């Protein structure tokens, strides 16, 4: 079965991203397909490579990146939500005159259409939020 995952909250503050991660991992391990993981609202905060969580805690960003590498996951960060919250890739930095980027290479920034398309192409949409 084909799943789409939407994540509405950033890492650590809410458990949403944790739950989404374990759901996604379990789905992939069962042989299901995950068409796309879409990060929306504060969920865009899951995609920054600048986090340094305490050593005795999980690294939420890296955990997603590793899962994505293993299963060739498409992890998309909403551009409008990212602009409001300061998540930037090279293209965004150029367009908006920013002197740095912070996105982790496992993620890509794109439009909200990617969420709608994921909902159309997948058999189930799961939303993880506050």
């Amino acid at each position, binding site marked *: 079965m084909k799943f789409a995952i939407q994540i509405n909250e950033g890492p650590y503050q809410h*458990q*949403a991203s944790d*739950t989404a991660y*374990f759901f996604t991992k*379990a789905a992939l391990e*069962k042989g*299901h397909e995950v068409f796309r993981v879409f990060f929306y609202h504060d969920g865009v905060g899951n995609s920054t490579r600048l986090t340094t969580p305490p050593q005795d805690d999980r690294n939420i960003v890296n955990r997603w990146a590793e899962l994505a590498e293993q299963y060739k996951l498409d992890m998309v960060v909403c551009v409008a939500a990212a602009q409001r919250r300061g998540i930037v890739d090279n293209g965004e930095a150029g367009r908006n005159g920013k002197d740095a980027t912070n996105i982790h290479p496992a993620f890509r920034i794109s439009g909200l259409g990617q969420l709608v398309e994921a909902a159309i192409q997948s058999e189930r*949409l799961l*939303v*993880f939020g506050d």
Partner: protein
Amino acid sequence: MSELHTVNKSPFEKSSLESCLGHAQEGSAVLLLEDGVYGAAKGAAAVEAKMKAATGIKLYVLGPDFKARGLSADRLIDGVEMVDYAGFVDLAAEHDKVVAWV
């Protein structure tokens, strides 16, 4: 069609569980997760009554979240079934869609 509803907020803090149960159709399922798992614990009269009134609806709780919060299986309200993440995936696949009461 049959739905899997998910509730991730404590019924003592937010109205999500009440709203979810008020909208869940007969034949659908409700999965409590994250802080929502408190709704599946015995002993809170008001919440327990709401859960028991949900006739025709199958009730589940996410075990990892239940245990994280110091709740053991013997505290489960009768009729609530415990699942793990793999079971959550199965529930999502078995129902026609998933509705999140975030």
